[in-house]
């Protein structure tokens, strides 16, 4: 033991135990300090969160395992096309800040279905809202639990299911105890952990490859080897040599890139767990500022991700392409045991033949491992590799907790308090909220351990659903006084159904199935949220023309929320 310590240093695994241990202790400590005593604290953290804290919490809430682990990996394989995620998942905040957050804060309720139900003076509308919120949130949370399991299994070498259970217990502890208040302050800490963990290796590698310490500039710089070649030109060359498209060109059609980007933007602005964060600040003014700060903090990671993608892609191709399998470094073998790197020596020459042509290609690399493996590929110190594991866990846990809160609030507040038993006491509602959170964690854990095959497909579905349902209903609710319940309900129902129809048709082969060639207007299921959103808007407006206008008091509410002053505490 002593011997190996001296030879190998402290080791990645020990570093991971230490860093994960420290961060988890921190989260639990914060949860105990910030536990919720009232429904107001449980749902919206008492409404007194500062814009900066809320911005950090929103950023951590928003940046999930998908942003931290998967996104740079996807970009590194898709090249230019990866921009749909970059623009889509940040551009939505502009819509959020300019069109939604200030007004929803002024409205002063706890949840998104609350707004839908009150603005459209209808419990049917509220129920449609609850169903959408539940579907969107469950889809997401299952993916987060899977991310937790992946990190644990690779870095701590425990069973992936044990990893999921550990994650469940941690989230359960602070979400159930702390509610929104506990979650908010743990998310602040998690933001710090995840951004540090993402940026440190990015900066190291940027210096290594280009000599420029700022990754956002580094990937547009010349190589550090003095050759005078730009990194991106080199990667374009490497890619075409192996038969791939040029990295900076991509392969999706323009209309599809357009549709996916818009669907992700609008979906982002319609996601309940993001919107609800803006109910926690004090004033309308703070809601606007907080959206700006959240995006600034998100963009630090989002602009570094495409740089990481380029570094990782270049390093990976150079390490594996046309090299003898026997010479592969340790990380390669370790990922092979998880099944996320698969080498199949088709021509038995012992050399790794990594090319675009599928019949000759011998290597399959899962996109999800690029960020996690990147520091190892670049031979960074052990503590940096361990830091990435801690950061990935912070990203997954913070998002999971935010989603669980939306689920529990939908059940205890929107379903029980507003529809089933309006006489429930505050204490009773708080117990119901905590029980709902416990059930939600267990369901999420179940899906994390037994992931349904459609998880990846349904993440896009979640955005499409939010785009097709909530976004038009909320926008029309704020900007069009005469929009009535008939129009909004019809719009949401038709919007969701058309989205579900298209997704199930092309993803699961229902309704006769179909291939890429059959896509309507060449738009993929991921981009169809844009079309479904337009359908929602049209249906809402047409139905509205033929049905009675909303009562005067509702129209007065709309005028009232357009004025920023006098936003009180969020209420029932």
């Amino acid at each position: 033991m002593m011997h190996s310590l001296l030879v190998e240093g402290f080791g990645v695994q020990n570093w991971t135990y230490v860093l994960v241990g420290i961060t988890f202790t921190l989260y639990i400590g914060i949860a105990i300090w910030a536990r919720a005593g009232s429904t107001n604290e449980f749902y919206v953290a008492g409404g007194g969160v500062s814009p900066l804290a809320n911005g950090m919490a929103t950023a951590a809430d928003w940046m999930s395992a998908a942003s931290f682990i998967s996104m740079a990996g996807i970009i590194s394989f898709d090249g230019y096309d990866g921009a749909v995620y970059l623009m889509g998942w940040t551009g939505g905040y502009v819509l959020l800040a300019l069109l939604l957050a200030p007004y929803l804060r002024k409205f002063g309720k706890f949840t998104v279905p609350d707004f839908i139900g009150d603005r459209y003076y209808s419990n049917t509308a509220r129920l449609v809202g609850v169903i959408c919120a539940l579907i969107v949130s469950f889809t997401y949370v299952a993916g987060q639990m899977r991310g937790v399991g992946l990190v644990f299994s690779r870095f701590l070498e425990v069973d992936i299911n044990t990893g999921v259970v550990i994650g469940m217990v941690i989230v359960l502890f602070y979400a159930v105890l702390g509610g929104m208040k506990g979650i908010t302050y743990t998310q602040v800490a998690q933001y710090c952990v995840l951004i540090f963990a993402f940026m440190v290796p990015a900066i190291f590698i940027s210096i290594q490859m280009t000599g420029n310490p700022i990754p956002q500039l580094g990937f547009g710089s010349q190589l550090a080897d003095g050759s005078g070649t730009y990194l991106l030109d080199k990667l374009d060359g490497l890619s075409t040599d192996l038969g791939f498209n040029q990295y900076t060109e991509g392969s999706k059609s323009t209309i599809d890139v357009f549709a996916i980007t818009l669907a992700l933007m609008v979906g982002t602005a319609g996601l309940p767990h993001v919107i609800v964060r803006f109910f926690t600040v004090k004033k309308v003014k703070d809601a606007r500022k907080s959206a700006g700060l959240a995006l600034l903090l998100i963009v630090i990671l989002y602009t570094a991700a495409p740089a990481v993608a380029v570094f990782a892609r270049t390093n990976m191709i150079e390490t594996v392409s046309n090299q003898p399998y026997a010479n592969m470094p340790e990380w390669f073998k370790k990922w092979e045991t998880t099944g996320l790197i698969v080498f199949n020596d088709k021509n038995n020459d012992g050399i790794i033949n990594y090319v675009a042509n599928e019949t000759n290609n011998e290597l399959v690399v899962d996109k999800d491992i690029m960020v996690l493996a990147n520091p190892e590929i670049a031979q960074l110190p052990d503590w940096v590799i361990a830091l990435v594991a801690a950061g990935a866990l912070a990203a997954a846990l913070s998002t999971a907790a935010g989603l669980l809160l939306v689920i529990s609030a939908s059940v205890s507040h929107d379903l029980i308090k507003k529809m089933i038993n309006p006489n429930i006491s505050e204490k009773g509602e708080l117990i119901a909220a905590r029980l709902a959170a416990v059930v939600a964690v267990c369901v999420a854990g179940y899906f994390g351990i037994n992931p349904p095959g459609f998880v990846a497909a349904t993440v896009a579905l979640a955005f499409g659903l939010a785009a097709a349902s909530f976004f038009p209903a909320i926008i029309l609710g704020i900007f069009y006084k005469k929009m009535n319940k008939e129009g909004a309900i019809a719009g949401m129902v038709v919007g969701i159904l058309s989205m579900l129809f298209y997704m199930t048709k092309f993803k699961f082969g229902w309704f006769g199935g179909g291939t890429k060639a059959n896509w309507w207007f060449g738009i993929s299921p991921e981009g169809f949220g844009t079309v479904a959103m337009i359908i929602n808007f049209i249906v809402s407006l047409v139905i509205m023309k033929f049905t009675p206008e909303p009562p005067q008091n509702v129209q007065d509410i709309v005028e009232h929320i357009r004025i920023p002053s006098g936003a009180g505490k969020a209420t029932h």
Partner: protein
Amino acid sequence: MTEKDNAKAYWKENIRYVLILLAIWFLVSFAAGILFKEELNSIKIGGFKLGFWFAQQGSMYVFVVLIFVYVRLMNKLDKKYGYDA
């Protein structure tokens, strides 16, 4: 001016700001990063082709600036119409 007219005038100015800012939002992302990417790609800044840069970097920086400009404009507008209490 009655309270109602005041609110109306405030709303009108707000909408004008929003439309202008959203036009820029559209230009940097959908126009520069997607629709006119090929044309812009013929221009190179350092190692970046310009269309590629807008899609993977520039649009995001502009998004952040847009929100902070909106915050400033609205804070001023709130004051002008007496809604900053």
